């Protein structure tokens, strides 16, 4: 088990994910423009901003899926800029994808099991469907209300079901810091309340969240700290109450 438990008490002041001057341009489009952001450990953070402001690109860069042109990323004080995605994931940063990615020809249960973390290389040879892990996997499916789909192949699920399955997977991988890209997109609002509660619960256990989301209601209700992106760089940050009244945010994002 990773040190989720013991870091739980140090909820403030510990640095989680940080970037320094992160820049990424695609051809002429500057998706990230020297973005310097710092997220603290133990919080529920939100990352908001208009479409195309670079939120997903930010996720992709910090999780190693794409190489930034310049700038640095560190996690808990350690530089992870050039690390491979799986190494970053193993360091404790889990993520979901905006365009929802599941393993289409695997059952829901296997989808979740495939996310389970392992120890050293030799543990790779252990059986994949051992009791304890199957129970844990089923537990996540149940918490997200899709336990009845355990044996259904992911490609045969509805959009929202896949979204939930992806969330179950990333939670199964037991990350310290969870990056969620639009977890609410397409999810039934009734369930969303439960997801919100789940996030708070997991946060209470000491997990950090960074959530990209356009559902302001959810964002405002669950986050401790909000960072607002525009054109590839943060333009404001602070607790929900502050963000709600920040003029730049209103102009750039809320469209008033």
């Amino acid at each position, binding site marked *: 088990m990773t040190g989720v438990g013991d870091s739980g008490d140090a909820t403030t002041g510990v640095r989680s994910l940080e970037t320094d001057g992160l820049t990424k341009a695609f051809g002429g489009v500057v998706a990230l423009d020297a973005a310097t952001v710092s997220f603290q450990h133990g919080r529920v953070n939100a990352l908001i901003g208009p479409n195309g402001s670079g939120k997903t690109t930010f996720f992709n860069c910090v999780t190693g899926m794409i190489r930034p042109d310049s700038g640095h990323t560190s996690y808990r004080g350690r530089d992870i800029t050039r690390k491979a995605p799986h190494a970053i994931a193993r360091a404790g940063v889990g993520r979901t994808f905006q365009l929802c990615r599941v393993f289409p020809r695997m059952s829901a249960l296997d989808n979740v099991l495939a996310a389970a973390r392992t120890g050293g290389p030799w543990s790779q040879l252990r059986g994949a469907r051992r009791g304890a892990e199957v129970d844990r996997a089923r537990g996540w499916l149940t918490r997200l209300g899709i336990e009845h789909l355990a044996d259904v192949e992911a490609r045969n699920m509805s959009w929202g079901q896949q979204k939930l399955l992806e969330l179950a997977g990333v939670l199964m991988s037991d990350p310290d810091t969870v990056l969620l890209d639009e977890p609410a997109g397409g999810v039934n*609002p009734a369930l969303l309340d439960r997801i919100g509660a789940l996030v708070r619960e997991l946060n209470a256990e000491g997990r950090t969240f960074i959530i990209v989301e356009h559902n302001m209601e959810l964002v405002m209700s669950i986050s401790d700290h909000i960072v607002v992106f525009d054109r590839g760089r943060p333009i404001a940050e602070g607790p929900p109450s502050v963000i709600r009244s920040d003029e730049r945010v209103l102009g750039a994002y809320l469209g008033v």
Partner: protein
Amino acid sequence: MASEIELVDIQAGYGRAAPVLRGLSVSVEPGTIVCLVGPNGAGKSTVLKVASGLLKPRSGRILVGGVDVTGQGPQRMLAAGVAHVLQGHSVFREMTVAENVLLGGYTIRDKAVVAERTAFVRDLFPVVADRWRTLAGLLSGGQQKQVEFARSLMVDPKVVLLDEPSMGLDPKATSTVFEQVVRMRDAGTAVLLVEQNARRALQTADLGCVLDLGRVHISGPAAELLADPQLGELYLGGRPAEPTTTGTAAALDAATRDG
């Protein structure tokens, strides 16, 4: 008034699996918005796929403008006036935004109409105009969604089926989309809208249907559904609606007030 589109007692499903829709009936009259809500996997998208001919129902009938079109493919359905915007992402990823939008008008022969509509959508969604020559697959998720919606605005159908058009959109774009939905309704189009942004959608819609277990669970005037506390808890989420505002709208309002 006669329904523009009517699904009668539809049974439908995928492959050999158990049916997803189990005797469902919905109809939409011209100039109205009917909003479908329901839990994930209830079958909302399946309803739309049946309505646009992407999925052939196992039994039941589909009427468009009173004509039985059961079993017709999407091409015929489009010709009959039914347009469908898919859930998730359905841009043509390796084609430019321009090609995507223009393909929206694939069936329109009149060049002038195409040009006029193009200008309209370019105006409506700045990203479409700004990224006209970019491959659509390179856009951000929300930008793609906007392109998709723009593409669907190229035609002027009698029935429009929208599957979560606001998903992934920022508040500004969401408003644009809802404005367009209203504009279509006002122009006499029959709109069948699926939304998980349920409160906002029901505020816009005339009628609401709650789908669960593959059939219509409850239906009625949208305002009534919104007001039902139990439905709210089960399907619409969030706090029971304050009289006028909720969800994103609430945040917006709050923002406007404070600003």
